[in-house]
């Protein structure tokens, strides 16, 4: 019987339906102001995508920031465990998960069985998160999805010393006033993020290979900057935003198996 994982993040809600080890349905929508509705919507869309009824699901596990606000799941599991499980399932060669979500960032050390060995999370700070990139994209009047591509053209990334979202924004404005090109500023922002994430991540043992999950993984510029900082190639999974929901579905499957 199929199982489902629902990941209600601060920015987006995702669902994955898993049957016989295959993703038969997925969904992604904006969380908005009501995480309960977003979770419901994500599950409904994924069910439609899979072409099955909710009654067909053996078990539903919720994860993410809004996991406690929904009432239609059998269990809630933290996104830390879920990202580890999801990443380990699709990429068993990965031992370090860097999850850059909408509101927080984390680094997770995963053991041979996909369990969390250790983790660190950022603290009340948006630096390195999707929110930070949104603010920077707005300040530079660039479409969020364009940031990655633009920064890859840079040959001389601008120096952005502060990684605090508020201070970095004013620093970006200063660079704009100095006439630094957008390309170099965006590359500088990505470097600053990479330094910040690196400083946090090295508090746990970094073991290759490294995999990146969460919405920020879609930004090739951040990935490149992280690779430079970590001096390693980083795996970008096919559906980085769905790793948490996939992990939740895998946890659901494990529970069913007893």
């Amino acid at each position, binding site marked *: 019987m199929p199982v489902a994982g629902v990941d209600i993040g601060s920015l987006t809600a995702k669902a994955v339906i898993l049957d016989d080890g295959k993703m038969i349905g997925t969904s992604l929508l904006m969380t908005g102001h009501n995480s309960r509705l977003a979770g419901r919507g994500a599950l409904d869309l994924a069910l439609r995508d899979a072409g099955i009824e909710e009654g067909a699901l053996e078990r539903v596990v919720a994860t993410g920031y809004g996991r406690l606000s929904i009432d239609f799941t059998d269990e809630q*599991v*933290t*996104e*830390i465990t879920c990202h580890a499980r999801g990443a380990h399932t699709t990429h068993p060669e990965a031992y370090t998960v860097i999850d850059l979500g909408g509101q927080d960032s984390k680094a997770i050390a995963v053991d041979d069985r996909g369990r*969390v060995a250790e983790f660190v999370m950022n*603290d*009340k700070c948006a630096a390195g998160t999707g929110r930070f990139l949104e603010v920077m994209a707005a300040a530079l009047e660039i479409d969020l999805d364009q940031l990655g591509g633009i920064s890859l053209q840079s040959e001389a990334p601008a120096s952005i010393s502060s990684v605090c979202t508020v201070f970095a924004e004013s620093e970006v404005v200063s660079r704009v006033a100095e006439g630094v090109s957008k390309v170099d500023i965006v590359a500088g922002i990505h470097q600053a993020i990479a330094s910040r994430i690196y400083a946090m991540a090295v508090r746990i043992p970094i073991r290759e290979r490294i995999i990146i999950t969460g919405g920020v993984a879609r930004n090739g510029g951040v990935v490149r900057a992280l690779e430079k900082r970590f001096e390693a190639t980083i795996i970008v999974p096919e559906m980085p935003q769905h790793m948490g929901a996939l992990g939740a579905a895998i946890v659901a499957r494990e529970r069913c198996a007893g």
Partner: protein
Amino acid sequence: MGEALGRLMEFRDDPYAPARSWKERTGGTVIGYFCCYAPEEIIHAAGALPVRITGENRQILKSGAHLQSYCCSLARTGLDMALTGGLDFLDGTVFTHTCDTMMRLSDIWRLNAGFAFHGDVVIPVRLEGKAALDYLYSEVARFKEAVEGYLGPISEGALQESIELYNRNRELLRELYGMRRENPTMLPSDQALWLVASSSLMEKREHNELLEKAIQEIKAEGASAGEGKVPLFVVGSVMDQWEFLKMVEEVGATVVDDDLCTGYRYFDEAAPEDPDPVMSLTRRIADRASCPCKYRPSTQRAGYLVDRVAGSGARGVIFFQFKFCDPHAFDYPYLKDALDAEGIPSLLLEIEHGSVSAEQLRTRVEALLETIRG
């Protein structure tokens, strides 16, 4: 909840209520202190009430002018309370020489807080050896003289009596911890740790009476629901984040034992019998479980921590640290390595008074529990 436990619990949200009412009732002197190395018995024997200041969850109004934001929130919110009238029941304060921030806070406090009495006790960093003990003895004696200069002579008998009262309190708290180690479900950890913290906030004789009754009540009630909670051990300085502890209980864990200065370190070791009460106090300070600001070559904190965790039956450790707390941050890496070597999972939480994000902490604690449960 029994009557005595209820009476102790009722002032948790207003921790200085007993000190205020004691002062109103008796017209006596109230002396605040920041650190549990302060020789409270001397203050008590002089007829005054020693009260521990632990900062509080508040937005800083005035202390920002005196302390940089890289000082811990204990110092910043504590000074802010003093500068905005929140500690108007105090007549004086005593500081003990522990970390840099507390040393500097003493001077800033003396010059700006405006209390009549100000005392300093310089506790040596190394707490073993004859030179250290001689020095510590002279400091405790000097503090006694300072208090006497302010409040009048303290008789040897009065000091011995205060020591007995404090030792009785320690014995009761030890009994409470023993009960919970046997069966953690007898009392939720937020209440157990409050029973220790409340001891530093009210008159000892009154606390002893209530605590003794509360322990009887807890015993009579027996174990409650909550079997199967994951036992955890907490390491840190001040624990006054009751919502955090309640959350830990909610997510299926309980703190069975700790190395906190508002917890186990507060009551560890009785002051030994000694014809000279100043020597008795000196020896307790030197012998009790030491904080990371102090050093005892014969007990390394890492080995000590591993033993304490094993003895408590805890399956995981939470380092509950205030941001910018140098001494605890300095010890953390080697304490964590020692726990790792024993296969004991741990979690570092850095918090500040007034901006604890319960939801982020909940996710981390749950993730630790998921790691423990496998």
